[in-house]
């Protein structure tokens, strides 16, 4: 077994059983697929495997812990941080950061390493895939053919879809994912508009500071932003009605950015034309009204789960921890603007 630690020039004080000690609150997907490989480099303290309640577990085990690996589900609150007095770094594998109390981390000078732009291409690919699917009815068509209906329903013509070219596409959140979506859809002849916290001067697309105003001017809304207090239920009934009866919404951000109950109502009442959804307010629960709709494509929060990306994520996690433990700059530090 190669000696990873020598290569990384790591302070031997950080080692436990010859391995870097890392506390893990809940198992990230990368564990499922690369757990064995990671266990050769890290000594993991697996909080979720303990019968003790989390606070108790931390009190007993976390006194010397400097590093935490987060999957993005268990909130890392000031209380939790207090129980890990030596905490120096949190490496998170999630795309979002809404589970970490950033203010407390700033106060305690705890570094945060993020997944960065690792997921952006996969997420953008899925957003575009869902959009084409909704517009061109690909999943509906696949169901239709597999049921033998193309051959048996001779007098029926499968309904026509809608052309992508020339459509106004409003991207909500023009970060790395949003920009990747824009670049792709431009090649399909779509016109890109956007809403973001701040206008991006280096970008050629028209900016709409108000998301409702954006919806008025669009045929499609693509949600690519993270979940914050400001973005929670930002896409509400008013926005959806402005999007209109021919409008389509795609969500690869977070379920709670959209007021799900209102969106379902709009879809059922045909106030909007369709939706492609990878995320939901209460996963894995999906409003059952959606199951009987033909103009909706549903995806089980898989926007960033390709084999290639997970392998790259594994390397990134290892690289960030090794950088921290050898006092080198993190590969993908959180830089707050």
């Amino acid at each position, binding site marked *: 077994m190669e000696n990873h630690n020598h290569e990384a020039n790591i302070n031997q004080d950080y080692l436990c059983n010859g391995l870097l000690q890392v506390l893990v609150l809940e198992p990230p997907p990368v564990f499922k697929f690369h757990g064995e490989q990671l266990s050769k480099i890290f000594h993991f303290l697996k909080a979720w495997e303990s019968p003790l309640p989390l606070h108790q577990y931390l009190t007993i085990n976390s006194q010397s812990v400097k590093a935490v690996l987060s999957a993005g589900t268990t909130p890392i609150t000031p209380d939790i941080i207090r129980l890990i007095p030596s905490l120096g770094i949190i490496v998170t594998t999630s795309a979002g950061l809404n589970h970490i109390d950033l203010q407390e981390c700033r106060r305690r000078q705890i570094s945060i390493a993020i997944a960065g732009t690792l997921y952006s291409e996969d997420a953008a690919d899925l957003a575009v895939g869902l959009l084409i699917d909704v517009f061109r009815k690909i999943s509906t068509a696949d169901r239709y053919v597999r049921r033998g209906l193309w051959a048996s329903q001779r007098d029926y013509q499968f309904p026509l879809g809608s052309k992508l070219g020339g459509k106004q596409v409003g991207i909500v959140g023009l970060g790395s994912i949003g920009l990747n979506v824009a670049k792709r859809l431009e090649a399909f002849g779509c016109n890109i508009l956007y809403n973001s916290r701040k206008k991006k001067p280096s970008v050629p697309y028209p900016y709409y500071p108000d998301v409702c105003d954006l919806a008025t001017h669009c045929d499609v809304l693509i949600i690519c932003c993270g979940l914050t207090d400001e973005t929670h239920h930002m896409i509400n009934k008013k926005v959806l009605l402005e999007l209109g009866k021919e409008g389509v919404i795609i969500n690869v951000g977070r379920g709670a950015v959209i007021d799900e109950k209102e969106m379902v109502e709009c879809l059922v009442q045909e106030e909007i034309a369709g939706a492609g959804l990878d995320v939901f307010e209460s996963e894995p629960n999906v409003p059952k009204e959606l199951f009987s709709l033909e103009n909706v494509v549903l995806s089980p929060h898989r926007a960033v*789960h390709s084999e290639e990306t997970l392998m790259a994520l594994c390397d990134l996690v290892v690289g960030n921890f090794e950088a921290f433990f050898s006092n080198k700059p993190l590969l993908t530090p959180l830089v707050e603007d």
Partner: protein
Amino acid sequence: MESIGVLIVCPMNTYLEQELEKRFNLFKFWNFPDKTQFLNTHKNSIRAVVGNATAGADAELIEALPKLEIVASFSVGLDKVDLGKCKEKGIRVTNTPDVLTEDVADLAIGLSLAVLRRLCESDRYVRSGKWKKGDYKLTTKFTGKTVGIIGLGRIGMAIAKRAEAFSCPISYYSRTEKADLKYKYYPSVVELASNCHILIVACPLTEETRHIINREVIDALGPKGVLINIGRGPHVDEPELVSALVEGRLGGAGLDVFEHEPYVPEELFGLENVVLTPHVGSGTVETRKEMADLVLGNLEAHFLNKPLITPVV
């Protein structure tokens, strides 16, 4: 022009049929159970045939219509029209290029994404309630995959442009290499298939390109390779394709066309690595209207002795 007889060979588009009825004496072929009798009765009044990808004007039909002057196809592909016979008899032929290029290219990319990222399969997964029991498995990334295109005409180039936006390296096979292109050329389909992850058929169907996707090409594409067919069903040796998919010798397929439409091999229905669509390449409201207007425009131009808009013969 209401006295000009126009024969439309199969149902294709309500708007087109209505407009043809307004302007011409329209005969709907499918309303006449005895085709031979129909042709005998009306052969001297039919001066135009409107066909599509499903049915056109073969030698037999052309011979049966002595007053036929023009065949206007509601498609860009003309494999259902006997072009040689039309040339021989001085019959004009028009199709619908350009207006459907984008839609077909969009579908090619849509099918690629649907196969690699398992969009239809995971939609089924959610609808069946399986997500509550566990996460869906990992799929394959699309960005950056090598895309090989057979036929770099209008549709092939539009596919390349879209795939480039996903950082996909583009390679192609064509009858002749195209100058000044940044895409990599391969002189044979087998070599192209050996060197790409996603192989897309975008060439016309002719005698040379029939079964251009055969066992050898499928083997070269391999167990991780994906075939996308937005051309014509007969481009692919369908039984070979089916057995390769069932046996796992080919990674996956996105198919909009089949050898014997509307019949699709049932062995494909249970496979999760295929996506099947019922020949909807140009199937959008916007494009079908543009195609219909082009058919109407060509017919009008012909009967007013004006230059045809999109003639092929």
